[in-house]
């Protein structure tokens, strides 16, 4: 049994944690599953699976409409989940928490609603060079429609995006800064508090793409003073189909609806409709009711383990994986800042990432290979693709060993 002493003083019992995730017990291609694609999506603990089933088995009905017991219960559970999210990111009000489909939709919501209402031709949006496509393309759509200008903060060779580099692009026309909290490829943790402070100094608003952050580090949107913060349920061990957009109340109030439909209106006539109050204004149509409920369970699960303990456990895995992989000749790691999340992207001289992933899969080791929805970043580092191992709260040093052994097998097969 491996027990990591966490900073918080808790004992992190990895065997017990692993037992919470039924999928980890299944073999893949005749070997124990080694799941190292957590940045793409995380596995689910039994309590989350059960929470979703529980809604369907006992308290399922549509929300916000029925004057009957089940609908009231479902609505209550849905709103309780909103409060769980509120406390998790320390939002001031639960109505500042909007449920969406995923991080991508959260960003698109801001681009479509805030962007169309408040951005004028010539206004500037700043993003960074390590963004996921979902924090690039919505702004390009807006640019093509509104004539705004997109500026890109360069990424340093070690994967760093410094606050100074962001500051260098800030100007009187900067209206919005939209950057990742953590890079999905390099693991870089961006200095978002500094970036937000600097952006506010020139009057710009800031959207933080927290898709890769919330499962690795504590987030306090008030302390950060973020204007918008987006993340997905499925990466924090919750169900798919649910995303979160946090927005400051006064901004959300000033923004027009994103989609029209049921639930988001106050009154509708064929001449004119008026909008519901927050958060309903941004939640048109029937949402992912059971999944939203189970997201709260996932957050409770993570909170109970403690983000500090999880972070300490993952930091140990990251250090161990980095050290072990570096010993393989011809292997290069991309993203080497000291302060990073447990993500290791790498390339081998002898084999293409696709071939690496294929051979690893044959050993039961699941990693991602490709451009990671970050093609500009691949261009930046002049690689067609990268192999990426990303760690979660249930991974172990033994799994790092399995990864390293499998990569050595790749070297054997493809090396000269």
């Amino acid at each position, binding site marked *: 049994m491996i027990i990591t002493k966490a900073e918080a003083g808790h004992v992190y019992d990895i065997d017990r944690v692993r037992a919470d995730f039924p999928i980890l017990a299944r073999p893949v291609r005749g070997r124990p599953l080694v799941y190292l694609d957590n940045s793409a999506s995380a596995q689910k603990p039994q309590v989350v699976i059960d929470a979703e089933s529980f809604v369907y088995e006992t308290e399922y009905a549509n929300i916000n409409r029925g004057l009957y017991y089940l609908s009231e219960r479902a609505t209550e559970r849905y709103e309780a989940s909103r409060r769980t999210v509120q406390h998790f990111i320390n939002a001031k009000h639960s109505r500042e928490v909007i449920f969406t489909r995923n991080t991508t939709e959260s960003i698109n919501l801001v681009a479509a609603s805030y962007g169309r209402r408040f951005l004028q031709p010539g206004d500037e949006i700043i993003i960074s060079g390590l963004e996921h496509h979902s924090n690039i393309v919505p702004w390009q759509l807006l640019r093509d429609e509104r004539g705004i200008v997109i500026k890109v903060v360069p990424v340093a060779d070690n994967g760093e995006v410094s606050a100074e580099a962001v500051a260098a692009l800030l100007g009187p026309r900067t209206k919005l800064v939209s950057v990742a909290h953590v890079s999905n490829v390099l693991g870089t943790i961006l200095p978002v508090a500094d970036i937000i402070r600097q952006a506010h100094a020139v009057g710009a608003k800031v959207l933080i793409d927290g898709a890769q952050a919330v499962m690795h580090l504590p987030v306090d949107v008030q302390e950060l003073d973020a204007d918008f913060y987006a993340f997905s349920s499925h990466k924090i061990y919750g169900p798919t189909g649910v995303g979160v957009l946090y927005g400051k109340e006064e901004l959300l109030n000033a923004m027009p609806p994103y989609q029209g439909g049921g639930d988001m209106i106050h009154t509708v006539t064929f001449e004119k409709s008026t909008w519901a109050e927050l958060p309903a204004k941004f939640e048109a149509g029937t949402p992912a009711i059971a999944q939203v409920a189970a997201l709260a369970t996932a957050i409770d699960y993570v909170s109970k383990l403690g983000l500090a303990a999880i972070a300490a456990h993952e930091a140990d895995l990251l250090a161990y994986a980095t050290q072990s992989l570096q010993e393989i000749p011809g292997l290069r790691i991309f993203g080497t800042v000291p302060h990073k999340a447990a993500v290791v992207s790498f390339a081998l001289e002898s*084999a293409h990432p*696709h071939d690496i992933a294929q051979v690893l899969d*044959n050993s039961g080791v699941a990693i991602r290979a*490709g*451009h990671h929805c970050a093609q500009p970043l*691949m261009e930046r580092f002049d690689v*067609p693709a990268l192999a990426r191992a990303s760690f979660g709260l249930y991974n172990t040093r033994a799994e790092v060993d399995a990864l390293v052994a499998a990569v050595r097998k790749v070297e*054997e*097969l493809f090396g000269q």
Partner: protein
Amino acid sequence: MNDDLRDLYQEVILDHGRHPRNRRIIEDANHHAHGENPLCGDKLMVFLKVNAAGVIDDVSFEGKGCAISTASASLMTEVVVGKTQKQAEDLFAAFHALTTGGEPPVLPEDLEDDFDRLCVLAGVRDYPVRVKCATLAWHTLEAAMHDAQKVTTE
């Protein structure tokens, strides 16, 4: 190394992957096309020199991809050179069926040996994601023959 992996990465594939044949630019090509596999970001170009009789006098490719896509491109250049465009298309149809597990068309006897050489790539049919790696060069060849500028395997 277990058998599954050996079936996929046969010696011939590893050899062509390490030492691709005809990876070069044909300066006086009269057809060429870009191919792209958006899933993995692989890009390659195919160059063709087709004579007045419609015979492929020279064929080459450029680009860096995985072992499967590089080996497939390399093998393709070896089998289609000297063939008519019609013969190249017949080979592609047969190769496509081979890699996707479809019903293979009946090939004329004079193409059988060439097709046999391509059969080392049959292992990809067990890996749906890799089928596109194996067929990218062929899709690009077809685009070049039809003077389509760009093709993706999406």
